[in-house]
């Protein structure tokens, strides 16, 4: 039975397909293994843009990469103190 299953493929994923999926995810993780230095630069630039539009609590900012099995997300928690009035008119 196992032999037949193997011979004709039982509709299950092939090991090649499995390898392809695992490889894709491994590389997503590897490539997002960014240095603290880079994350710090990113944070500074994000703050730089945000302060044009709002007052934020710079000391409480949290920026990090969140990884699970399928995807990676950039998660930012930025406490807003006040939206600037003229920010709506700014393009």
């Amino acid at each position, binding site marked *: 039975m196992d032999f037949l299953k193997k*011979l*004709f*493929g039982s509709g299950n994923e*092939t*090991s*090649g*397909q499995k*390898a*392809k999926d*695992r*490889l*894709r995810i*491994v*590389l997503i993780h*590897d*490539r997002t293994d960014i240095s603290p230095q880079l994350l710090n630069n990113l944070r500074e630039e994000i703050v730089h843009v945000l302060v044009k539009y709002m007052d934020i609590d710079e000391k409480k900012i949290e920026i990090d990469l969140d990884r699970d099995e399928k995807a990676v997300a950039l998660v930012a928690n930025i406490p807003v103190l006040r939206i600037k009035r003229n920010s709506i008119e700014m393009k």
Partner: protein
Amino acid sequence: MSARVIVTTSGKGGVGKTTSTANIAAALAKFGKKVVAIDADVGLRNLDVIMGLENRVVYNFIDVIEKTCKMSAALVKDKRVPGLYLLPAAQTRTKDAVNPEQMIALCEELKPDFDFIFLDCPAGIEGGFKNAAAGADEALVVTTPEIPAVRDADRIIGMLESMGKSPIRLIINRLRPNMVQDGDMLAKDDILDVLSIELIGVVPEDESVIRATNNGEPMTMTLDSPAAHAYLNIAERLLGHDVPLMDLESYAGRGFFSKIKKFFRGKKK
């Protein structure tokens, strides 16, 4: 003459860097180019054996760097193919016996006399890799169709890019066309999808590689085997010739079982 300097690298060990270096270098020499292959794997030298020149090694490139001998004394001339040379590594030294600046100077000294300089890189991403890569302008990244090798290739490609090497091209080695066809091996396109770099050739798994290593004669010198053919094509592509990828299936030696399997798979759709 000013040589193109190409590093052969991979990250992961044992994927075929040395085999590739020897065969591509020999193929280019066969095409009439003047080629030197430098064994940059200090302490674990292999290129001399794979090229079959181990009995003629007297000095090594560290002797040249330390001015123990002249460059011309360290270069081993291959008597089988005109224009092919080996610059051996030191076997009894460690990787920190050299630094990147010295490797650059070594390549600069060789450049005027050659068309191609190959640097056969050690495995890893540390000193040995950095030394070998320092002297190079271009890179060949070797991988096999397996997750660990492709993953390490990705890492190495990132490092080569940040070092400004260009072009960086990929060799997929030890591909088994029948396993790919049966869905049991990563296919060429699966690997190219994730690495997104230029492919310069696919080398099939081939027993002749082992025979050639036993005999100490790069396959591209004489043998007519699938892997020899693949390496000759890679050498041509390095010269800018537009050579189509080999039809590896025709080499796969399709067995009876894979034929009926294919037949049934076709029916199922």
